[in-house]
């Protein structure tokens, strides 16, 4: 059982829940850039956390399913068709063997997820399957790749969908970190009062933020020793430009960090399109602790909100054929 790539966007890679526990080895967790969207794909597919999906930044590709299987589509909506017929995003679908799945441009965000069958079955390295560029693990997907797929755990399960997440517009919540007090009160207040713009410079390692005011400099920082970085840290580079660090961040760094974006809000940074404005607000460590949710609990919540995918009869060009598609064929 496999999936072949006939055409591919420039930043498409295999991603999963990442490789936890490697900070002491110099390995940051990595994994899906929008962890919440990845967990939504797991919920739709009915697969355990850690299953490997295809992460598509900005643009998907053309995929051929070599066996009949369900696929889950999650994350930022992208134009998707199966053999030319549009299919819903934030939903699972049964796709017949030999079908062509086309996934086009993201419309409102950056990262979309395709999780076929029971997840991709590519070899693991250091406990994960994901591409992690700075760790030197894996590579971006390429035209001609043929990816093995684990069997669909419930091939007869009725396709489900998730309600589109309601857009959040409040300030991104930031908790203090080990270097927050290097920035004086005025600088921290100005940070909260500033409207930032998401720069075009962004990848899975971090997102650069632009703003028109003075740079955000810490006190004397030249002799400061490199220390641990957390995903979500807002790092001020030498010229005082903020970068929010994402899944593929380095494990240690010397630039001072004004705080850490809460994991629940980090997907909003990852999904922000170039030019989108962002505001930040500090919360206390206690608030951050209270807002922490395990991946397992997030998956449970997502599964509870699954609902049957109701098809639009107008999209069913031939109802008899449609019924056949609804019955999975053996591999």
């Amino acid at each position: 059982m496999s999936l072949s790539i006939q055409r591919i966007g420039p930043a498409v890679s295999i991603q999963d829940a990442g490789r936890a526990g490697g900070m002491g080895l110099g390995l940051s967790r990595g994994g899906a850039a929008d962890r919440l969207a990845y967990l939504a794909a797991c919920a739709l597919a009915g697969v355990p956390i850690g299953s490997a999906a295809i992460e598509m930044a900005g643009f998907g590709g053309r995929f051929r399913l070599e066996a009949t299987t369900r696929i889950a589509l999650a994350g930022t909506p992208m134009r998707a068709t199966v053999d030319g017929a549009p299919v819903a995003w934030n939903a699972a679908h049964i796709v017949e063997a030999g079908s062509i799945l086309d996934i086009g441009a993201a419309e409102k965000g950056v990262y979309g997820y395709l999780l076929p069958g029971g997840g991709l079955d590519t070899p693991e390295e250091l406990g994960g399957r994901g591409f992690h560029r700075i760790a030197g693990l894996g590579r971006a997907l390429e035209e001609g790749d043929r990816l093995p797929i684990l069997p669909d755990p419930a091939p007869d399960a009725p396709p489900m969908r998730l309600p589109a997440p309601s857009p959040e517009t409040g300030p991104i919540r930031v908790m203090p970190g080990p270097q927050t007090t290097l920035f004086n009160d005025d600088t921290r207040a100005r940070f909260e009062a500033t409207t930032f713009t998401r720069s075009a410079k962004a990848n899975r390692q971090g997102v650069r933020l632009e703003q028109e005011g003075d740079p955000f400099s810490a006190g004397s920082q030249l002799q400061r020793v490199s220390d641990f970085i957390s995903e979500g840290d807002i790092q001020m580079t030498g010229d005082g430009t903020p970068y929010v660090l994402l899944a593929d961040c380095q494990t240690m760094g010397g630039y001072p960090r004004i705080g850490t974006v809460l994991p629940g809000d980090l997907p909003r940074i990852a999904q922000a399109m170039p030019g989108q404005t962002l505001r930040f607000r500090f919360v206390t460590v206690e608030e951050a602790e209270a807002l922490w949710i395990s991946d397992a609990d997030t998956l449970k919540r997502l599964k509870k909100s699954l609902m049957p995918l109701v098809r639009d009869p107008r999209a069913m060009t031939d109802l008899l054929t449609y019924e056949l598609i609804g019955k999975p064929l053996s591999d």
Partner: protein
Amino acid sequence: MTTPEILPLGPDGILVRFADALSEPANRAALAFRALVDDAAPDGVTETATSLTSALIRFLPNHVRRADLEQVLGDIAEARDWSDAPLPDGRTLWHIPALFEGPDAPDLEAVAREIGRDPDTAIAELTAEPLRVLALGFAPGQPYLGFLPDHWNIPRRTEVTPEVPRGAVVVAVRQVIPFANAAPTGWWQVGRTAFRCHDPAADPPIALKPGDELRFRGVTADDFARLSDAPRGGAEEEAIG
């Protein structure tokens, strides 16, 4: 040494920081502290790690409250004087062949000028003593090694080299790093090793541990060419207790 600072690093992390400038005793303290935390195995802890001068403790906030874990860590921190902390048990001394000449040592002469020695003396000093693995960081298994003598306290280059190859041996600020992967760097490249910091074909793939020691041995270009296929790039290990 004073009691370390206990600081938040993300909603599921605690950083125990022994110093905010690099020093040998602070590194030793961080290693020893992490070993004590691992022995104590507090409830809800998922991961421990050390950087150059800090220990990181990751935990499950739905299993243990931060305040309670901070109390446990604070008690461990106050239990001893960290200035004479012992190094962890079960360390290894790695003898690693490296080439310190030709195209793989593009900055050797500049470094020799910076430290006020001739290139041969610079190589002799690089290979004279074992260096400690202060931390693994940036890329899997990549060690920060220290410390070279005081006159090696040279700044990073003003211009970043766009890419040095995997195995590049680079120096700055009394430290040496053999690069795990090809990468840009502001450090000075003085040599190259066939040792791979992360070697998928080896068991374990990541050989070095913080606290281990590593001594470079200069080899000829002919020897170096033969080492590229050798297990662990020709590295030899020796237990040091």
